[in-house]
């Protein structure tokens, strides 16, 4: 019987260890980004000089601009395509519907390295798309559409479709119904998927690295190139802090949108 008594203590200990394991590296990285140590591995007094350094660094700034540009285009195209696909999948019964549903999931179930290699060969040997922005954006869209489709599908299962019927009954044509009824009903899900896709595209390293070619540097690629010199720990710490705080900004944004939805 005694063994049962210790179980309630074992579980909280495990939980504490788990969250420490999950968050300690990130927290240490943030703290070290303010450290004066030139290797960025231990605490040597507070400084903001690494932030000043990346702020004035043209390489970082260009990489950030590229990443933001790619993520923005991806978000716009993927949410539109994903919403349309979700609508089609939800509203219509057609041949190959189940197959399409599974196929949409395919890009996110195949290992990144395989997709990355496949796209590199496809671009360079078959369709001759220039590496760089076009190739990266195409790849990111393929990956982001599943997120949009399934987030929007989830919302579709919960909304009141009689509103759409009412609109048609009252003589609204298809476009008006979409604009006045369907879109506003789906908007929270569309924005939520955008909030998921943006960081996904912004963070992607493996696929971007393969199809970027020589001229295009996104922020993760910049970090990787810095990593290989091995002397730029503080710079990576500061950029890393930006990456770690990004999800919190996304979360606040989603929270804000949700509140707005209620009022």
């Amino acid at each position: 019987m005694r063994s049962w008594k210790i179980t309630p203590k074992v579980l909280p200990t495990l939980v504490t260890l788990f969250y420490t394991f999950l968050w300690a590296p990130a927290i240490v990285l943030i703290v070290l980004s303010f450290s004066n140590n030139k290797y960025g591995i231990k605490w040597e007094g507070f400084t903001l000089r690494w932030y000043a350094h990346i702020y004035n660094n043209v390489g970082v700034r260009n990489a950030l601009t590229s990443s933001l540009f790619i993520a923005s285009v991806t978000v716009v195209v993927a949410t539109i395509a994903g919403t349309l696909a979700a609508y089609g999948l939800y509203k219509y019964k057609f041949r190959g519907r189940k197959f399409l549903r599974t196929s949409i999931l395919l890009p996110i179930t195949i290992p990144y390295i395989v997709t990355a290699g496949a796209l590199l060969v496809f671009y360079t040997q078959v369709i001759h798309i220039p590496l760089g922005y076009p190739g990266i954006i195409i790849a990111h869209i393929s990956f982001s559409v599943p997120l949009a489709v399934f987030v929007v599908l989830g919302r579709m299962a919960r909304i009141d479709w009689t509103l759409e019927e009412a609109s048609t009954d009252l003589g609204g044509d298809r476009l008006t119904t979409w604009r006045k009824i369907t879109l506003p009903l789906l908007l929270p899900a569309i924005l939520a998927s955008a909030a998921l896709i943006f960081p996904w595209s912004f963070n992607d390293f493996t696929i971007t690295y393969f199809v970027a070619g020589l001229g295009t540097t996104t922020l993760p690629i910049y970090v990787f190139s810095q990593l290989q010199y091995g002397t730029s720990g503080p710079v990576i710490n500061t950029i890393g802090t930006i990456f770690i705080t990004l999800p919190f900004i996304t979360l606040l944004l989603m929270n804000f949108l949700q509140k707005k939805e209620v009022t």
Partner: protein
Amino acid sequence: MQTFKVMGRATENLREKAKKFLTKQAHLPYVGPISLWIIVFVFAPLGVILYFSLLTIGPYGQIIHTFTLENYLALVKVGFAKVFLRTILFAFGANMVCLLIGYPIAYFIVRHGGRWKTLLVFLVILPSWTCYLIRLFALKTLTDSSGLINSALLSLGLISSPLGILYTPYAVMLGLIYTWIPFMVLPIYAALEGLDPSLLEAAVDLGATPLRRFFTVTLPLTKGGIFAGTILVFIPSLGEWLVPLLLGGAKNMMAGNLVSIYFIKAGNIPAGCSIATALTALVILIIYLCMKLGGEEALERIV
């Protein structure tokens, strides 16, 4: 006159047919673009690696377009087979550890989370929204021989020389677990959350001990979550290349590293394609097994 009438009827007929066809194809404007996109940018590239995996390169690195099984025969060679075996071992090990840690964590959040539930779930999700290159760098900083863990242990006098965690198989396992564990916790959490509490009460009423209740009711009913988590952890672990690259070193290379070496460093596209194809075959096998064991639910729970 007669001809006009016939022609009129024919057009009417045609228009009717066209209309019928259009209503039947009403889904096309919605799913057409995405279908086309998937065919061109998902299926075609996968077909292309299959095709190129059957080719070989000439002495100047040019691709020779004659079919050969050379690349696949090379895969059976000792060196490659060892890397593949290691890949499966690492991925499977990481998956099992994630399951053994992840299940109790999900269980704790559902049963004892209370008003902290949402926060606890978000603390699991949020790391996966950070660039994982950065997360791995952070883990590396922490476990480095001059990093925080070693300095702390040294100053506490628990060890006399720094532990060499980095560049060992353990470091790769640690990296895999650290990267992918959120994706094990979340589907199991969802499955446990959806569990009907009256079933658990029934088990208690019928006199089941907590342990028996867990193994006969809770565990079988959350099978879908477990296999969804397995798909989400096992598969990306199989394709991992950054974790072994950053934490493992050349001795602990995984199949993904071979792909990147052949594609980027060696420029031997056919060889890279054969390894990528073999990896994909492995992935399909695992998805198939997970779906067979975990049912449709395993795939549904992923999204």
